[in-house]
C-alpha cells in the first residue's frame, strides 16, 4: 500500500503544473452558460491546447495514475474540465477506441482529440429511464443505411454537436439486451430535431432529440448489429470508474470555501454546523482515497474499474448533495435562497446525482447482486 508517487509521476505533475500556470491566465473569459456556440468554441479551443501540449489523449492513453494526477492538477488550478468534449473524450471516444475498426478509429478519434468534433449521447429515452435496455428507438436496414426513428432525452450539447453516439433497437423480437445496436449518427442528417429541455435549475442544460427516419450509414456502426449493449457497457463501466475524480477535488475545494465563509459569517461557532463540515471533510477525503484505490486496482489488473465504481457513485452522489445542503446552512437566512449566491445553483444541480447514470436504487441492486452475491431481486 503506497500513496507516494514515482519520480516519473512527480515529473509529470511538475511539468503539467508549470504548463497550467503558463497558459491559464491567457484563456478567454468563460462564456455564458446559455451560449452554446460560445461554450463549444471555448471547450474545443481548450482541448486543442491540451492536444498541442501533448495532453490531448490523456483520458484514454495514459496510465490511470497519470490521469488522476491530470484531473487533480487541472481542477486545483481551476482549468476548464472537458465541457463539450465530455462525450467524445469520456464516452464515445473510449468506446470507439475499444470496439471500433481501424478505419473508424482513424476517422473519429483524431478530430475528438484535436477539439474539432463534438459528440453527444443518445442513450436515454423518456420511457426507458433507468431501464436503459427497454429503449424503443427503432432502426431498419435499407441497403447500406439504417433508417432511425424515435426519440432520445438528456442529451447534452446536442445543439452544437457534430456526432451522436446512438443506441437503437435493430431486432425488436430479440431479448431486451440482444437487439440493440451502436451507431454514430451525424447531427446534420435529415430528420434530426433538437429541442432544449429545461431542468429544475431553470436552464436548458439538456435537450431532447426527435429522430424521424434519419439515415445512418451502416459503416457508422461500431461493433456487430445487435451487439450494441455489450459495446455500450464499456462506456458505462468507464463512467463509473474515475469519471468523478475531478469533481471530488472540486467538492473538496467547495468545502474549504464553506469553512472559510462560515468562519467569516460567524456560523463556524455553531458546533452542529462545524461538526457537519468536519464529517464532510472525512467523507470527501475517503472518497478521494477510494478513487486512488480503484485506480490502483485498475492499473494492476489492467481492467476498467467495475462494480467498485457503483460503491463510489452511491456514496459520492449522496455526499455531494450533503455538501450543498450544508452550504445552505453556511449561507443561512436570505443567502441560502438567493440564486445569485455561490453554491445555490449547484445545490439544485446536485439533485440529479442520485438519479443520473443509474439511480442510487439501481446502484444498490448492482452492489447487492454483483459484489455481495445476493439473488436477483424482482
Amino acid at each position, binding site marked *: 500500500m503506497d500513496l507516494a508517487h514515482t519520480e516519473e509521476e512527480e515529473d509529470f505533475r511538475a511539468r503539467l503544473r508549470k504548463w497550467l500556470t503558463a497558459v491559464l491566465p491567457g484563456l478567454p473569459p468563460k462564456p455564458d452558460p446559455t451560449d452554446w456556440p460560445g461554450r463549444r468554441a471555448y471547450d474545443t479551443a481548450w482541448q486543442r491546447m491540451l492536444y498541442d501540449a501533448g495532453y490531448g489523449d490523456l483520458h484514454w492513453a495514459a496510465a490511470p495514475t497519470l490521469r488522476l494526477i491530470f484531473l487533480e492538477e487541472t481542477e486545483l488550478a481551476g482549468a476548464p474540465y472537458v465541457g463539450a468534449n465530455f462525450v467524445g473524450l469520456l464516452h464515445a471516444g473510449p468506446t470507439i477506441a475499444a470496439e471500433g475498426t481501424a478505419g473508424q478509429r482513424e476517422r473519429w478519434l483524431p478530430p475528438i482529440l484535436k477539439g474539432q468534433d463534438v459528440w453527444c449521447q443518445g442513450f*436515454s429515452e*423518456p420511457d426507458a*429511464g*433507468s*431501464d436503459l435496455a*427497454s429503449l424503443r428507438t427503432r432502426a431498419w436496414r435499407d441497403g447500406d443505411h439504417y433508417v432511425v426513428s424515435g426519440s432520445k*432525452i*438528456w442529451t447534452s450539447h446536442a445543439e452544437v454537436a457534430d456526432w451522436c453516439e446512438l443506441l437503437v433497437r435493430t431486432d425488436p423480437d430479440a431479448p431486451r439486451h440482444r437487439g440493440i445496436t451502436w451507431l454514430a449518427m451525424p447531427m446534420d442528417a435529415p430528420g434530426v430535431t433538437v429541442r432544449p*429541455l*429545461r*431542468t*429544475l435549475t*431553470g436552464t436548458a442544460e439538456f435537450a431532447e432529440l426527435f429522430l424521424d427516419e434519419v439515415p445512418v450509414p451502416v459503416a457508422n456502426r461500431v461493433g456487430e448489429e445487435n451487439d450494441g449493449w455489450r459495446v455500450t457497457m464499456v462506456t458505462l463501466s468507464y463512467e463509473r470508474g474515475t469519471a468523478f475524480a475531478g469533481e471530488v477535488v472540486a467538492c473538496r475545494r467547495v468545502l474549504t470555501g464553506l469553512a472559510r465563509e462560515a468562519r467569516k459569517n460567524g456560523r463556524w461557532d*455553531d458546533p*452542529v454546523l462545524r461538526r457537519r463540515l468536519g464529517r464532510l471533510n472525512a467523507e470527501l477525503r475517503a472518497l478521494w482515497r477510494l478513487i486512488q484505490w480503484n485506480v490502483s486496482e485498475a492499473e494492476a489488473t489492467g481492467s476498467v474499474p467495475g462494480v467498485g465504481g457503483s460503491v463510489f457513485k452511491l456514496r459520492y452522489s449522496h455526499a455531494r448533495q450533503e455538501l450543498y445542503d450544508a452550504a*445552505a446552512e453556511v449561507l443561512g*437566512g*436570505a443567502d*441560502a*435562497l*438567493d*440564486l*445569485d449566491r455561490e453554491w*445555490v445553483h449547484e445545490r*439544485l444541480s446536485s*439533485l*440529479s446525482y*442520485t*438519479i*443520473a447514470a443509474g*439511480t*442510487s*436504487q439501481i446502484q*444498490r*441492486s448492482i452492489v447487492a447482486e454483483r459484489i455481495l452475491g445476493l439473488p436477483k*431481486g424482482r
Partner: protein
Amino acid sequence: MPFRLDDDQRALRRGVRELLEGRFGPDALRAAVEDGGELDRGLWRALGDAGFFALRMPEEDGGVGLGLPEAVLAFEEAGRALLPGPLVATHLAAGHVQGAAEGDVVVTAVDGQLVEWLDAADVVRGGEVSGARPVRSVDPLTPLHRVPRGAAYGDPVAVLLTAAEQLGSAGRTTGMAARYAREREQFGRPIGAFQAVAHLCAGMLERVEVARGAVYAAAVTADPVDIAAAKLLADEAAVRGARDCLQVYGGMGFTWEADVHLHLKRAWVRARRWMGTAEAEEVCAAAL
C-alpha cells in the same frame, strides 16, 4: 376528546380544495411560475370572498368565526396547491389592516432578513423595508427581498400556518410519488412494485402522518412548544417528501415541467421562514 376532523371541518377542507382546484389548477400554476412576481389579484379577492383571510375573525366583525384548527386546514390545502402569495401575512392582518380580510389588499411582513412579495404588496407589517434589495429567489413562486435591518421572530400563528402549508405540500408530494409509482413502468412492471421505491413512499407517508398529528394538535392547543414541534416535523416532511418524490420521478422529476421542484423549492423557503430548524429544536429542548 374526538381528535379528528368533524363534519364541518371535512366540508371546509373540501370547499377550499375545490376552490383552489377551480381557481388555481395546473394551467394557472404554470402561468404563475412563468409570470414570476405577478400576483393574481382576482384570485386574491376570490380567496377573500371565500373567507380564507377572515376565517378566524369573529362573525360580528364580518369574519367567519372559526378557529386555528380550521385555519390550519385551509393553509394545508394552500400548501397542497402551491398557492402563491403572502398568505400568512395577509391572514394575520385580517381585522388589523383595512381590506385584508376581503382580499382587497395584499399584506406582506418582514421575517428576519426576508420579505416576500414586496413588489406585489400594498402593506408591509412587522418591520422596516427601506433599502430592501431583490433576491433572485430559488423559488419561482416566492419573490423575495432582503432588508438591511431584519425583524425578530414574530407571531406563533405564522409559524403554525407555515407548518400547515408544509404539511399540505408533503401530503401532495407523497400522493404524487405514489401515483407515479403505480403508473410508471420499468423492467416490465410498475416501479411501485419494487420495494426500493415502495418503501421510499412509505417513509414519506410516515413523516406526513407524524407531522399531521403535531400540526393538528398544535392548532388545538396553540401551545408554543407544540407549535415548534409542528414546524420542525412539517418542515422535515415537506423537504424530504419533495426530495424523495423527485427520486421516485427520476429524470422526469428533474425537469422544469414536473411540479416536484416547485414543492421542493417552496419547502426550502418555508423551512427558513418564521422559525428555522435550529430554533425549533432549541424550543423543544428548553421545554424538557
